[in-house]
């Protein structure tokens, strides 16, 4: 009697494509997404973007810049990327533009090598006169500044051997009483050999080979974004979790259309003065307002419990909230119009929303993902919404700076709604 039970269950599952998809496709899709995010595939962990400003232009600073540029885990840029590759390269970053770029989210870290660094690059023994390299960072990314700081010390040890040796001699002179003429002559010979070796290495263009201990270079780290935030990352999580649940709510709410079609209510409504376009538009507006209210409640909760700065960002919240709500409402309408039954809608929406949320940054910050995955995220509503809310709540950017996110979300909403309207023709008349 057990076998027939199993057979019946298997037959049922085979006919229930929605359950099949949820049982097999979703886990595989999730496994793949997270495997790619965490670099399990092709060692494609994201390189940390670093903006580098060399105000010194000394031999030591140039060595350090080259050393950092050779670091495979860093993506060092000294000037803003030009959109048109054939155009004249843009001017190099300055301390001010680098700080602005970190604030705008172009890179999580900027390093500024100050004037005079080359004269006194090493800070043995807590030498307070050594010019300090400034490390500007976005405090939403706690990993990047730590990594850059460590790699900076490594680069100093491996890319500036001559400077290190010269500085070592200076300290010996200063604290031990200097070398004998014989010792000095041998040191100078060794230094010449070291210079020749370095020159040969540069010609061979290889990366520095060894690593050393940290603390040689004086670094002064300063957060330029998020320092005044009472509860860092709350706005990020409110947006990322909020968008994911908005997608679920909007899809569920749009599913009422399927209930009405099944019960015959839709037919009856369409036999009145109501047209399909006005019916869908009405539902779209309702679902947009519902999604926006849900978002507002979530942010209010964040304000009340986690000290989220909601009331100082009202215009940005309204703009991003309404645009996001519109896009997710249209997404729900499209799914509801495509699906034949509520069960089908439930399965497909779960599959799509969880995948969009994983890739789009609702489950894991996009800036920690490999670059390809970050680009893939741009095909999701989540990514654009989270980027917009981050601009508002984290970077304190004005509403005008949201034009990209607003344009994309509105365009997505319009396109999805037009598609939903076309597909809904199946309900209009038999």
């Amino acid at each position, binding site marked *: 009697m057990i076998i027939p039970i199993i057979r019946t269950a298997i037959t049922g599952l085979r006919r229930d494509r929605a359950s099949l998809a949820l049982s097999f496709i979703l886990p595989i899709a999730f496994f793949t997404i997270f495997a790619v995010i965490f670099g399990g595939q092709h060692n494609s962990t994201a390189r940390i973007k670093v903006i580098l400003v060399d105000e010194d232009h000394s031999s030591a600073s140039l060595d350090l810049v080259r050393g950092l540029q050779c670091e495979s885990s860093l993506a060092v840029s000294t000037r803003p990327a030009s959109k048109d590759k054939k155009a004249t390269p843009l001017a190099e970053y300055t301390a001010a533009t680098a700080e602005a770029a970190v604030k705008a989210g172009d890179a999580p870290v900027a390093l500024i090598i100050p004037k005079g660094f080359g004269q006194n690059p090493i800070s043995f023994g807590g030498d307070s006169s050594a010019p300090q390299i400034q490390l500007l960072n976005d405090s939403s990314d706690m990993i990047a500044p730590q990594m850059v700081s460590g790699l900076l010390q490594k680069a100093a040890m491996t890319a500036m051997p001559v400077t290190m040796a010269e500085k070592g001699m200076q300290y010996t002179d200063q604290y031990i009483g200097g070398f004998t003429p014989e010792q000095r002559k041998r040191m100078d010979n060794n230094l010449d050999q070291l210079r020749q070796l370095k020159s040969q290495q540069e010609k061979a263009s290889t990366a520095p080979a060894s690593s050393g201990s940290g603390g040689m270079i004086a670094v002064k780290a300063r957060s330029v974004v998020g320092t005044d935030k009472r509860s860092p990352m709350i706005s990020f999580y409110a947006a990322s979790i909020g968008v994911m649940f908005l997608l679920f709510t909007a899809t569920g709410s749009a599913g009422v259309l399927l209930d009405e079609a099944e*019960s*015959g*209510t839709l*037919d*009856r409504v*369409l036999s*009145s003065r109501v047209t399909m376009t006005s019916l869908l538009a009405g539902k779209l507006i309702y679902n947009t307002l519902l999604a926006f209210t849900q978002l507002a409640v979530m942010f209010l909760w964040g304000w009340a419990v986690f000290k989220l700065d909601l009331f100082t960002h009202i215009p940005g919240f309204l703009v991003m909230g309404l645009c996001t709500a519109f896009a997710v409402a249209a997404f729900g309408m499209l799914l509801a119009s495509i699906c034949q039954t509520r069960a089908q809608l439930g399965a497909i929406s779960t599959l799509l929303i969880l995948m969009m949320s994983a890739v789009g940054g609702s489950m894991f910050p996009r800036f920690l993902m490999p670059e390809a995955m970050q680009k893939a995220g741009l095909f999701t509503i989540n990514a654009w919404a989270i980027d917009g809310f981050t601009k508002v709540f984290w970077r304190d950017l004005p509403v005008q700076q949201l034009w990209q996110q607003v344009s994309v979300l509105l365009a997505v909403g319009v396109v999805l709604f037009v598609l939903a309207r076309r597909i809904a023709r199946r309900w209009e*008349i*038999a």
Partner: protein
Amino acid sequence: MSASSSLPMAAPSSPTPLEIDSLSKRFGEVTAVDGVSLELGAGECLGLLGPNGAGKSTLIRSIVGRVRPDAGRVSVFGFAASSPEARAALGWVPQELAIYPRLTCKENLAAFGRYHGLSGGKLAEAVAWCLDWAALTDRAGDLEKNLSGGMKRRLNMAAGIIHRPRVVLMDEPTVGVDPQSRNRIFEMIEALRDKGAAIIYTTHYMEEAERLCDRVAIIDHGRIIAQGTNQELVHSTFASRSQVVARFANPASETGAWVEQHAGRLVDGSAEFTIERSTQIAGLLDDAAQAGLELLDVTLRRPNLESVFLHLTGRELRD
């Protein structure tokens, strides 16, 4: 409901409430409606009688503009079926309970009233009238899910006439309703008809058609196979003949040949014969006795719509 209380609509281009001309609709290989022509006068109730799958609902949905016919024409007071004028003049009570389960009776009626363009005082008046018509005034604040089956049906009907249409299409409105509620529904329909509404009433219950309808159109396999008043249909099919229904103690295997020999047929174990004169009964019973059949009872019956349907199609209405 009086004509004066109806919604304002464009001047009719035809005085006839509903005209259907050679209407056909196919779904793939199946012809659901096959060249149907009908006409409905003001204040008239036309019964559309046919078994399940005969094409009644498709015909109704074509009239209300929810099915696009492959051929033929439907006009409501001279306007095309899907035109705004026709929509304003038509009221549709679908077979399904097409109402909002999470709204109260009053809210449901108000919602459908708004969909038909009612607002303010007119909407409130229409809702109150419909609640009264459906005897739901005391349940106005109850959710649909808390109503009995009969009440739900009445609410479903009221939602179809909230805009006070002049032509009402009722698609089997008594499905699944107990006899008491059915009587209440009959009274509602009679009240509507008395107020001058033209009604098409689909059913596969012969007794409903006999009670409510001025005329009956019998539909089978998508075609109207006969139409007229109840008497006209019976007379044209049976003239002055009557039906004799005899039950025998013998099994059908023994009676079948004898019944066929006497131009009768077996229906649900009873033998049915059509006779010209009542004096033929005695001869029929003598023959049965001589054939060794043991008679249990015999009934003389005037033919009715069910007999007409059976005669015309060879099938019972509820097959």
